[in-house]
């Protein structure tokens, strides 16, 4: 088995390492070697912590030998570079944090470590999680493993691509408007954004605080369930975290889909930007669920069409506030320049990329005195309506099924402002994912086929608040009945993957 561990599932690795059939060190070494070989062409990793990973792996092997039960024993994990890691540089994909070495671990990272996961390093992302293609990283783009001329999606582009390419078994991402689900869809992996507050945001660099949520990406729903069991739960260090018991998500994954009601918003399939092949694949996936015994019910989400506009007021407003701390005074980049005001301007001008600046300006504008009611407050009212739509829809169904992304992965440069001159082109990539964040609901993307037989497509499943178990259950049931997730992209250096 050594050397062939990279497409084992996290569940399999944890079982093998826990049963001492494999050592955590072997698994880590195999993945580190594969990263060294494959990632040059992909750009998933901003930092590989080889020494740290091997030390953790050794510690896991010792703990296992002592008889400790570790649910993620030896599972190699990558972290989106938005997760604060003690002693390991954390940049949020931005120049403004280059060289910043945090003095603490966030809660999600600490929980992964405690569960026996081995953290291999930090993954590329759109700067401060703002973007849908990973092209807004200050450290270069990520290439989609299925076609390196194409984007992996974003903002957790590195997290999705690394899992798809077998560079780690699990990764952590964050999802503010689709940033876990959309890249998962474009890279052909599973990614879940839990209910807002289900996983602590402590130690996660903030983009839009009322929308940000942490979640795992893996190649199977069961792997995501395993990770979520370790991650979820109340954290006294995050006042918005939910104090509710954590269900056995892995048990839920083993339950049949039969009898569940799957809501389908027909209007989502009539959207102008929906690729015909994507629409057909998602409909076929819904048909598959029906064949597994689920009951399809039509639902309506009349205010969902306002999601994009609502999101682009709330998220920039919060980001303009959250990013005020990057002022060159205490950490990160400082560009000395004249007086204090000039230092602020020079530092932020040099430190932030164009998309981050655009959103800071949008948010600052929306929050000006006299404009608050017309913009931010109005957006919050629409947000409440969107949430109410979902509340009503979930009276008639257990999960909602939609496309994750209207299109499969596009060419690098195709939708950037430089490439097409239209900032909204990129924003439209998130039309199906954003309403879930506005309503605070759990949402997941699971692979459901390939456009032209080569570019992955994702089925999005949404649940009511704290409805992760059913969402994972449907995804796992679908994966048992399909084999999309067993296909892997070809090696970037030639030969079989």
């Amino acid at each position, binding site marked *: 088995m050594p050397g062939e561990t990279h497409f084992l599932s996290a569940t399999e690795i944890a079982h093998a390492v826990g049963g001492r059939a494999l050592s955590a060190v072997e698994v880590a070494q195999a993945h580190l070697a594969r990263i060294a070989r494959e990632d040059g062409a992909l750009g998933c990793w901003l930092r590989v912590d080889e020494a740290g990973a091997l030390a953790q792996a050794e510690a896991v092997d010792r703990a296992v030998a002592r008889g400790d039960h570790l649910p993620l024993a030896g599972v190699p994990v990558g972290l989106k570079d938005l*997760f*604060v890691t003690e002693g390991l540089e*954390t940049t*949020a994909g931005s120049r403004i*944090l280059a060289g*910043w070495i*945090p*003095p*603490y671990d*966030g809660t999600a990272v600490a929980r992964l470590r405690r569960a026996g996961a081995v953290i291999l390093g930090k993954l590329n992302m759109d700067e401060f999680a703002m973007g849908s293609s990973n092209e807004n990283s200050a450290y270069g783009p990520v290439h989609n493993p299925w076609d390196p001329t194409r984007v992996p999606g974003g903002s957790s582009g590195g997290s999705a691509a690394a899992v798809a390419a077998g560079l780690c078994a699990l990764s952590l991402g964050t999802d503010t408007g689709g940033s876990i689900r959309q890249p998962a869809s474009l890279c052909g992996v599973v990614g879940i954004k839990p209910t807002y507050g289900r996983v602590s*945001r*402590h*130690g*996660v*660099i*903030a983009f*839009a*605080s*009322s929308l940000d949520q942490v979640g795992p990406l893996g190649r199977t729903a069961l792997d995501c369930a395993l990770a979520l069991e370790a991650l979820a739960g109340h954290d*006294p*260090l*995050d*006042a*918005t975290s939910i104090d509710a018991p954590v269900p056995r998500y892995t048990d839920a994954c083993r339950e049949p889909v039969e009898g569940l009601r799957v809501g389908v918003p027909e209007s989502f399939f009539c959207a102008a930007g929906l690729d015909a092949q994507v629409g057909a694949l998602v409909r076929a996936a819904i048909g598959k669920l029906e064949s597994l015994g689920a009951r399809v019910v039509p639902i309506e989400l009349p205010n969902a069409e306002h999601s994009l506009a609502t999101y682009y007021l709330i998220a920039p*407003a*919060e980001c*303009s*506030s959250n990013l*005020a*701390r990057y*002022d060159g*005074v*205490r*950490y990160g980049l400082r560009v000395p320049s004249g007086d*204090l005001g000039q230092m*602020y301007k020079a530092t932020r001008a040099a430190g932030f990329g164009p998309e981050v600046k655009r959103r800071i300006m949008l948010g*600052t504008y929306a*929050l*000006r*005195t006299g404009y*608050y009611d017309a913009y*931010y407050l109005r957006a919050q009212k629409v947000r409440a309506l969107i949430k109410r739509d979902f509340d009503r829809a979930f009276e008639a169904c257990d999960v909602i099924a939609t496309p994750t992304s209207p299109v499969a992965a596009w060419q690098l440069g195709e939708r950037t402002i430089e490439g097409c001159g239209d900032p909204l082109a990129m924003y439209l990539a998130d039309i199906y994912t954003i309403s879930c964040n506005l309503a605070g609901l759990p949402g997941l993307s699971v692979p459901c086929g390939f456009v032209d037989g080569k570019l992955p497509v994702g089925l999005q499943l949404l649940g009511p608040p704290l409805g992760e178990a059913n969402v994972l259950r449907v995804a796992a049931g679908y994966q048992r009945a399909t084999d999309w997730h067993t296909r892997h992209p070809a090696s970037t250096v030639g030969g079989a993957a």
Partner: protein
Amino acid sequence: MSRYEPVIGLECHVQLQTRSKLFSAASASFGGEPNDHTDPYTLALPGTLPVLNRRAVEYALRMALATGCRVRRVSRFARKHYFYPDLPKGYQISQYDEPYAEGGAIGFLLDGQPRRVALTRIHLEEDAGKSTHVGGAPTSLVDLNRAGVPLIEVVSEPEIRSAKEAAEYLRALRQLVRWLDICDGNMEEGSLRCDANVSVRPVGATTLGTRTELKNMNSFRHVQQAIEYEVARQTALCERGERVVQETRLWDADRGSSHPMRSKEEAHDYRYLPEPDLPPLHIADEEVERARTSLPELPLARRARFVERLGLTDQDAALLTTERPIADYVEQVIAAGADGKRAANWVASEVLRELNRAERSIADCPIAPPALAGLCRLVDDGTISGKIAKDVFGKMWASGRGAKEIVEAEGLVQLTDEAAIEAACRAAVEANPQQVGKYRAGNDKLIGFFVGQVMKATRGKANPEMVNQMLRRLLS
């Protein structure tokens, strides 16, 4: 008399003396090496989140209830944005349109007359750090020890009509926060800070004039002087037909004048945003009730009770209720068996004088309440005279010994034996035939001479009243 009247409102920042900061576990205490009292949250490191300190809420609640505010069961925190190096997050977490407390009033005496100044609101917020600008240096120094210390901001209605009234309001507010044990009220160290909004208008007008905001006043005297200066400045402008400019002005105590800091045009747009990292602040009915029942009797009520029950003058009652520990001390002396009025008089005169002289607080008083009660009882039951009692008090203060012990050890027990007093009086009369003659000739005042002789002979121990009566009988 000026044709203009001042309209003054005060905004007071009260630091709550909790152990940790409003949103993190870093120490909230004053002092320390610069940036010692910090943690990742205080430094606004990426990924940190605020966690509300419930003790601060409890303290804030005490103030709201003591001033009769309406307490919102659900209030909200908001971010107030501006860029400055001593504001690490680039925003201050405060409360904006939904403060936890509204209404209420602060009562005090102004020239002996009761006054009440209504409050607009009280809200909770975090303090900023401190910047030090070293003269001539190209850099400034930032100390974040104070950043994140809990504050309440107490905002008065513009009901104050003179600088003196403003100072009295502030004294009452300081007395109250110290009384409630939520703040030490130290204006020099900045645990209590006051900004004043000042405008003037023609007497009889009902609309408000253009106001200025005064800052940087760190004593009662400065507050009064700065407002007096500002009222005079604005009145002079108005009388010359010029306009008052809306601006923030800094008081310069050394020069005794204020100068503009920033104008309305330069004012920040704070871009308030409901704080997404904190859920709404819920204050349960039970929490309010618990705080209400644990509230001590407030200074004005205590003062009225001292006047009524103990028969004190208003002045003495005020003196004994400046600080709750002093009032408590008085009550403990009474509870230990002393007569109320006598106990109050002892504290108001001897105890406070000695504490002042020694620059000590009542908590460090070397005479515990039961010990002072013991002294009072010895006077009440005639064991010692009032005059002897003062000597005994001095010895108690110096040695920490009890009154009875001192009186017995030094033989200071008052002479009340009638035969002994008669003997001493006879001796004084017989030894001074000349004075006896003058007395009997009508010089009544000489009684004092004879009393003095008897006291001298008995080393002050004879009961003065008995000596007086005996001498009058012998001399008549």
